């Protein structure tokens, strides 16, 4: 499946976009999404070393299963608020 992941701050600057599309297998977890992002968008590797995600506007652990209708955001706070 394909998934759009929202990105912010220095990740958005690095990718020159406010979201990136990733290709993942069926029934992925957030860990799969993170791995796919790092492979398919190497400019985001710096923000994926210890990534933090939100799913549907709430923090979620890497074991969280993802469906195509979920809102997924990479919220690693590189540099802080």
């Amino acid at each position: 499946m394909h998934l759009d992941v929202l990105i912010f701050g220095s990740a958005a600057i690095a990718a020159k976009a406010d979201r990136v599309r990733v290709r993942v297998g069926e029934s992925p977890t957030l860990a799969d999404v993170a791995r796919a992002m790092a492979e398919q968008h190497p400019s985001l590797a710096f923000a994926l070393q210890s990534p933090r995600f939100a799913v549907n506007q709430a923090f979620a652990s890497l074991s969280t299963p993802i469906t195509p209708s979920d809102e997924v955001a990479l919220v690693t706070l590189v540099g802080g608020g």
Partner: protein
Amino acid sequence: MDRSSMIFAMILDGPVDPSAEARALSSIALAQSDLNTSGRVGATLRFEGIVRRDEPTPGAPAGETPPIRSLSALQYQSYDPMAQAQLASLAHGIAREFGLLALTTLHSRGRVRVGEISFVLTISSAHRAEALTAMMAFIDRMKRDVPIWKTPVWAD
């Protein structure tokens, strides 16, 4: 004794200048004034975060002092509505954990120029110790758990 505390948390557009602050806090102005004359408050603490002109430029090699470059502003981006929910949840959690009488916080979204305020946190408590430790805990956790990012707008 009344165990409730007065909590207010809001992300607003632009700098937290006095008029923006008064507008944001108008709904609790009366409750604030009641609290201040109640005789229950022994300490109030107010923190203002202000945009500084000089920032080290990012990307310097480790171990080297990064060159200083001048800002004209910071651009704050917040992931809404999660950022607002996290800020409010943090405010309630800190107030409960430290037994505060009041906590109000305002954070900017969008552009805030050098010298302008981007963040205000005000705490009222019975004694000074809990106000100071609550303030440090709030700011640390905000930087960790409230999805707001800042991007420099360079002067040159």
